[in-house]
Every structure is written in C-alpha cells, then in structure tokens.
C-alpha cells in the first residue's frame, strides 16, 4: 500500500519578527504513506513543531504545497482547513491542551460533536474506558494528573477515528514510567485503528518504535536509516 496520505513539495516557511527574517523550513519534500508511523526528531528550535503544524493545516507555509489525501491543504482557506481537520485529524500535545472548563467526557465528546457525530457520548465513554478512565468521566482536567490528562487527550484523538494522528512530544511533560504507559497506549490504539501517526519527540525510545525516523536540522529534513 504505497499511497501517500501526506505529501509536501518544496515547503518553505519564514517569519519576520521585528526587522529579522527567520527561515524555519527550508525546502521540505516529504511523503508519508497511509498507515505508517513516522517520528520527527531534532534539536530544539530546528522547526519540528512548525512542520507538524503545517502538515496538520494549522498554518500555511510561505511557499510550497502540502497534499492531504490529494487535497492541496496549503492552498485552502482557514475555514476549509478546519473542515479537513475535523474529519481527518487527531492531535495529542505535549501540554495536553484539554479545555479546562469541560469534564473529561465533554472534552472527548467535543471533536465528535464538531464532526456532527450522532453517538458522540457513547463513543467518548467507550474510548475513555479503553484508556482506563471509565470511572473519571465527570472529572475536570484540574482534578486529573498529567498522565491522566494525556490519556484523556489520547481518547479524544482516537475517538474521532481520524485517518491521521499528529502528536507533538506526547510524553514531554511526563515522567519516564508514565511516558511509557502513554506510549504503549498510543501505539496499541494506532495498530488497532490503522491510523497514520506523525509524532515529534526528543525521546529516542519513543522514536524508535516508529517505522520511520526523520531528523530535522535547521529547517531541513533527513531520513535516518
């Protein structure tokens, strides 16, 4: 199955802060096949998060094109990209990014509701119990530990059954043991759902569990074999 679900061509991104121009991405050609798992590693500030954001359509590159399943998302308006995200992508972030004002259950239901799913509640409950939080449905993020919050985030990401999952340092804020639990959870659900997984990490143990590892170096991407 060699159909690329994500493909980029000559991706450049630069920002100007004040009078300085900063080149963050400097010509990235990348192709990720459906169902594979890819890790992006590299030094801090090398542009990993920026690239991830571009692939997920959170922002638009200065130049170059990004296709997601043959749709040129880099050419789309924000409104269109939001729709693509709602139907195709899930996220897990380093600092969890749960809505503090919603309960665990409501947090997981949210993207399902955005998508217009009918069984938002039952799906959300199912996935929360699969990450082991079936008893904590009505707790608020502030009442959960970091690891538990990240499990809610994972439930949220997988409940949508989106074909692509993006994760930015999912274990970055957790201790080693908890990080291991989260990693296991991530990969087992990934296996099961046959999602494409793109993750950014400093954790080489986590990276090594991916099928491919790419190294980011000052805005350029190299395949690490």
């Amino acid at each position, binding site marked *: 199955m060699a159909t690329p679900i994500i493909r980029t061509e000559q991706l450049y991104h630069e920002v100007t802060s004040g009078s300085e121009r900063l080149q963050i991405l400097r010509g990235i050609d990348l192709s990720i096949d459906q169902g594979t798992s890819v890790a992006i590693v590299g030094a801090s500030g090398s542009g990993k998060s920026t690239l991830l*954001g571009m692939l997920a359509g*959170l922002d638009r590159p200065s130049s170059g094109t990004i296709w997601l399943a043959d749709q040129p998302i880099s050419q789309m308006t*924000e409104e269109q990209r939001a729709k693509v995200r709602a139907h195709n992508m899930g996220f897990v972030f380093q600092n969890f*990014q*749960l809505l503090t004002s919603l309960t665990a259950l*409501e947090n997981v239901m*949210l993207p399902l509701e955005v998508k217009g799913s009918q069984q938002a509640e039952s799906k959300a409950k199912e996935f929360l119990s699969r990450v082991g939080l079936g008893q904590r449905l009505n707790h608020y993020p502030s009442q959960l530990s970091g690891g538990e919050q990240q499990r809610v985030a994972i439930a949220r990401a997988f409940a949508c059954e989106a074909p692509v999952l993006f994760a930015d340092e999912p274990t970055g804020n957790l201790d080693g043991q908890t990080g291991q639990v989260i990693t296991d959870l991530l990969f087992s659900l990934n296996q099961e759902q046959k999602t494409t997984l793109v993750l950014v990490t400093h954790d080489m143990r986590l990276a090594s569990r991916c099928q491919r590892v790419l190294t980011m170096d000052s805005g350029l991407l190299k395949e690490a074999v």
Partner: protein
Amino acid sequence: MMLAWRLLWRQRKAGELWIMLSALLLAVATVVAIAIFAQRIQSSLLSEAGALIAADLQVSGSEPLPDSVLALAERNNLIQSQSMNFQATLITDAGLQLGAVRAVDNLYPLKGDLTISAQPFGEESLVQGGPAPGELWLVSRLFSVLGLEPGDSLRLGDVELRATQAIIREPDSAGAFFGVNPRVMMNLEDVPSANIQGAGARIRYQLSVVGSESDVQNFRSQLEAQYPELRISSPRDSSDAIANALDSGQRFLLLAGSMAVILAGVAVALASARFGHRQANTVAILKSLGLGPAAILRLYVQQFVLMGLLAISLGLALGWSLHALLLWLLRDFFPQQIAAASLAPLGLGFATGWIALLGFALPPIWRLRQISPMAVLRQNQLGAKGQWQQWLFGLLAIIALLWFYSRDAQLTLYVLLSLAVMVLLLLLVAWALLYLARQLSRSSSKFWRLGIANLYRHRRFNALQLVVFSVTLMLLYLMVLVRTDLINSWQQQVPDGAANHFAFNLYQEDLPAFERWLDEQQVQAQPLYPVIRGRFHSIAGETLEQRTANLGDRSGEFSRELNLTWSEHLAADNQLLAGQWWPQGYDDQELLVSLEESWARALNLELGDYIEVRVGGLIERARVHNIRSVDWQSFNPNFYLIFNQPLLDGFGATYLTSFYLPPEQKPSLNELVRAQPNVAIIEVDAIINQVRDIVDRISAAIEFILLLVLAAGSLVLLASVLATLDVRMRESALLRALGAGRALVRGLLSIEFLALGLLAGLMASLGAQLAIIALQTQVFDLSWRWYPSLWLLGPMLAALLIWGLGSLATARVVKIPPLWVLRQ
C-alpha cells in the same frame, strides 16, 4: 448553543464575566429606571391632550372679558364655560393657607374628566360640573392642613363655604403640579359675595369653548385680530409647552444616567478584553479540533448573547424597581395617580444593553477568530492583543448612546466634546499627581516606595481610576453639601428680625385696621407702599417691542403688568447709582421716575430719558431722574419703578408691606385675615421651607443617580484591577519566593489603593469646594467658605472605598503560593 452555554457556565467563577454581567445590568437598570419614571410622568400629564385645558380653546385676560367676546363665541356656535382663577386665603380655626382658586360654572369641564372623592384620598368618582354654590372642593391634603372634615365650613374672602369634596384629578391641572399653591374649586356665583378683588389676587378671567374645528379656528382668528391683549391657548399650545419641559427634564436625567452607562461600558470593555485574552488558548484548541473561524465567532457570540440576555432581563427588572424609588423620592411633585408604564422605556433599556454589548464587549471577542491554531504547539501563549480599533467601537457606542438619549445631534456633540476635554485635562492632572507621588516616595521608607512604585507602574489604569472617581465623588460630595449645608446657610443668612411675611392687597380703607393690628402685635413693619398696576407704553420714544427686540426671552419681563409705586423717601436698602433722589413734597413737579439698575441697563435708559406707562386707560409720561440698586434678598418690598408722586392721584391703589412676625405669634394672622378678607399674606419662611424641600428632593434624586454612576465607576476599578491581575500574581509570587511575607504583599497593595483613593478624594474635594464656592457666590449671594469636614472626610471616604474594592479584587494575589512562580 449547548456548547456555548456549557463553556459560559463553567467559567462562572471568572471575575471578568461577573463584572461584565453586573456592568451591563447596571447600565440597563439605570436607563430603564430613568426612562420609565420619565415616561410615566409624561404620559400622566399628557394623557389626554384635548383635556389639558378642559376645552378646545381658552381665552383669558386680567380684566373681565368684554361681552363682545362672549357674543363672538355665540356667533361662532361655540359652547361656552366661564371661570375665574385667582389666589385667595382660606381660613379655618386651625390655620390659613393661600390657595389657587378656580371658580367655575356648571358646564366645567367642557373636556376631560374631573374626579373627586367624598373623603380626602378616598374612593374616586367622576363628576360633570364644579361645586354647587356654597360649596368648596379642595385637594385632599388641604383637609389636614386646615384641620377640616368633609362638610366643615371655612372662610374664603367674605363668604363661608362648606368643604364638601376632595379634588382627586382635574383635567387641566397639568401645569399646576409645579405651582406652589394647592388647588381649590368653588362656584362662580359665590365670587361676588366673596368680594375678591385687587391686584394681589391676580384674577384671571377665562372663557373656555368647544365646537367644531372650523368654528373654533374662526373664533380664534377673529379674537386675535380684535383683542390682541387677550391670551389664547389651545390644547396643542399647552401640551407642547409641558411636553417640552418634560422632554428636556427626561433628557437631562438620561444624560446624567448615561455617565453610568458609559462607565459601565468601559468596565465591560476592560473585562471583555481580559476574557478574550484568557480565551486565546481555548480558541486555539477548538480550532485544532476542527472549528473554523466562523464557528468560533458563532460560539462566542452565542455566549455573549446568552450573557446579554441574562444581564438585560435582570437589568430590566432592577430598573423597574429603581424607578419606583425615584417616583417615591419625588412623590410630591406629581399627581397621585400615575399612568401605567408602557413598553417603550424597556425598549430603551434593551437597546442600551445591546449597544453596550456590541460596542464594548464584542470587539475583543471578534478578534478571537483570528487566533492561529498554531498556538497549541507553542509554550508561550499568543493572546489577542488589544488594538486601538477596539476603542473606536467603544467611542461609536458612546456616541450612539448619547444620541439615543438626547435625540439631539448638537447636544450629543457638546456633551461628547466637554467629556473629552474634561477627561483629557483630568488625565493630565492625574498623570502629574502620580508622577509627583512617585518622586516624593523616593525618599520615604521602602514600604511606601514599593507601594507607590506599583501605583505608578499601573498608571495607565490608575489615571483612569483617578478621573472616574474624582468626577463621580466630586458630584456626589457637591450634592451632599448643597443638601446639608448650602440651603441651611442660605436660610440662616436671613438676618434675625428680617421680614418673614408680606402683606398685600390692602386698600386705603383697610389701612387703619391693619396698622392697629401691627401695633397690637407689636410688630415693626416696613413702610406701606401704594401699588397700581400698569404697563410700559413707550420707552425713550420707542415702542416696547422696538426697545426690547434684542432681549429675546427676557422681553416678556417688560411687557407684563407692572407694580408701580411712588415714594417720598429712598428705601434704606436701596442705593443711588446715578442722579439724585427727589426733594420731599410732590406737588406741582414734573412726574419723575427712579429706575432699578438692571432694568435701566436692559432697556438702555439714561438719566433724562422719558418713559410712558399706561395706567387705568391713561398714559403717564415720566422722566428718569435717578438709577438705584436694590437688595432683593432683604425681604423688604422693592420695586423696579418708583415715581415721585401718585399715579392717577392714588385712586384705586392697594398697599403692600412686609414685616417680621415671631413664629409664636403666627395664629394672630388668622384674626387679621378674618377681619380683612382682602388682604393676602405670603409667609416667606413657609416658602423658604418649600424651596428647601424641593432642593432636598431633587438633590436626593440626583444623588441616587450619582450612586448608580459610582457603582459603575467601582466596576471600572474592579475590571482594571483584574486586567493587571496576572502581572500582580506573578510579582507577588516572586516577592514571596524571595522571602516576603503575606503581610508585606498585602501592605504593598493597600498602600497602592489607599494612595489612589486619597488622590481621587483630594481631587474630588477640591472640585466640590470650587463648585460650591461658585454656587455660594454666584447663585446664593453668600460669602464663600471652606468646608474642613469635606477636606477631611472626602479623601478618607474615597480612600476607604477604593482600598476596599481594590483589596477585594486582589484577594487572590495575596494568597498566591510562592510555588506558583515556578509553574509559570
């Protein structure tokens, strides 16, 4: 919608939402209270425009109307009703009271409803026609004033009448609510036997007519052509006049109230900016989950609409209750029966709420949709920054509200400009004060230095506080001073033994008895001045119209009937400014006149100019012999024109004087009036009390609105303290991490707010002191004085208020654990 509600509900602990909610609520309540109040009063007074003068047309004059006028009405097929209006003293054993008497025939009222009651304040019934001969009707409260039960007799002039009914409502009383004397109604047939006469009674003879529109119109134009001296009024004329007066009253109140709305708007804007800032992260997350900008906007607009609906409906309810309070404060000025409120004022409140929400709360929310979802990948939060466009929206909202309330573009512009100038000036002063405080604190203890440094650092917000509180408190202090002190000292400055009664309408033949009464009471009276009524005929060769053409509204002062007198001596409280007083002995000399200075100036008259006055059908020509100043505050009889010899040989003159009667001797007035029914007495002390009462109530109403303004100002303070809360928390955590105790942190905050309050209080006291000096010297002719208590209490109260509010808003800052700084 569910999500919107859930998000909103979960943030119910966020301070900024509460501020927004209460600010909106306050704005709506203020406007609704004022608008309902004004509208109910207005519609009570205007309810039936046709009934306002109880006829289609009313003709009145100060002389009995010529038969030819009645005949003219007859020829135009009009139904006629005659009446007389005059002032007369009512006398019972319990006391006396000057009443505004209306003597009517059986046809009264030709239009509108006359409602009476058999008992004072009792059950009402509708009647056609006024009192029967021998009966007298009076407004309910007079029964107790005069110690009357229904059916009791009382004296009016030379007749005994029975007080049979209480007047609840008369159709044409609209103007009279503001009049000083209470209404009394009698039959026209009793007037001759009551023997009411003379200038003091100020009799107005009235003819009211109804008929077809064209007949009335014909009658009117014929009257205008043939009898220019008669006054003609139609319902339109009088309803317009009342409507105008009420309208400007309402607009004034609303403009005063709009200060509360504007302040509330500022609070809403500050709170909304903070809300927007804190929502940045949520928005980024929602966007990463697939919500587009439009969906984000919808979500937040829904939240604001929900909150707006809540705040506005509560505001409408609160406004409703507050208007009842306003009505109660001003209860005696208005009829007892007040029209029910309509929905229009609620609409005004509703619109106010939405304009405020749109102009002040929405801009920060509007920008939320632009937040980049990339923010979820960054550690440092990219909150939406405040932009100047946001304030443009606020400004537009302010303009819209001002225009909405005043319905007057020029006034709006004027208010806006003076507001802007005032705010800018005060900001400058505030800024300078803050700078000064900073410099001064450099050399003081570290405690104060740190506290004041805080004050200075947040100077953008603190200067705003200074302006808001100094203006509001200044107005409030001023009102309290006016109410508690100014009127008192005005009353007290009347020297002991100064005249407290005027007696007028005394006839030549009454004088011996009157003087005997004065002797008996051992009362020292001013000289008795003869009075003849007359009008200007010409002035220095010009007609009155020509001479007063450029005086505008003031020209009416000269075209009225004048009190003319003559005297051999110059009164002690008058001073000659130009010319000589005439030598004693009148005979054979040219007719000379002495002019009061302000009239001489207005009419541009100089010594040697001639004036002509028309008295009793004759025209008298007099030369201006001198010009004098008059002390109008002396409570002595004073005149604009004094002649050197009797006009018309003194024929038909009535006399007036003033005297001091100790309060305990007041009952003897009854004897005087009983013996001489013509004489009219004005109790100056009673009038002063009445003025005092009016000032009391009006300033209470204004204070009430100012308290609402103050509440709005407090919300601005809370909102702007919240805006600096994050910075303050970080600093306080840092201080505590460095080893400072809670007491120190709390102390620093206290110093900041106390200093802010002191400064605001000082500015307010200064402003109030200056304003009251202006009032004392310009309006009340008092010598100005300091108010040490103002200077002491003013800053203290302000400091307490601001310190209390500030401590409340920063309670969390003090409690923040030092660890917090590590987690940021």
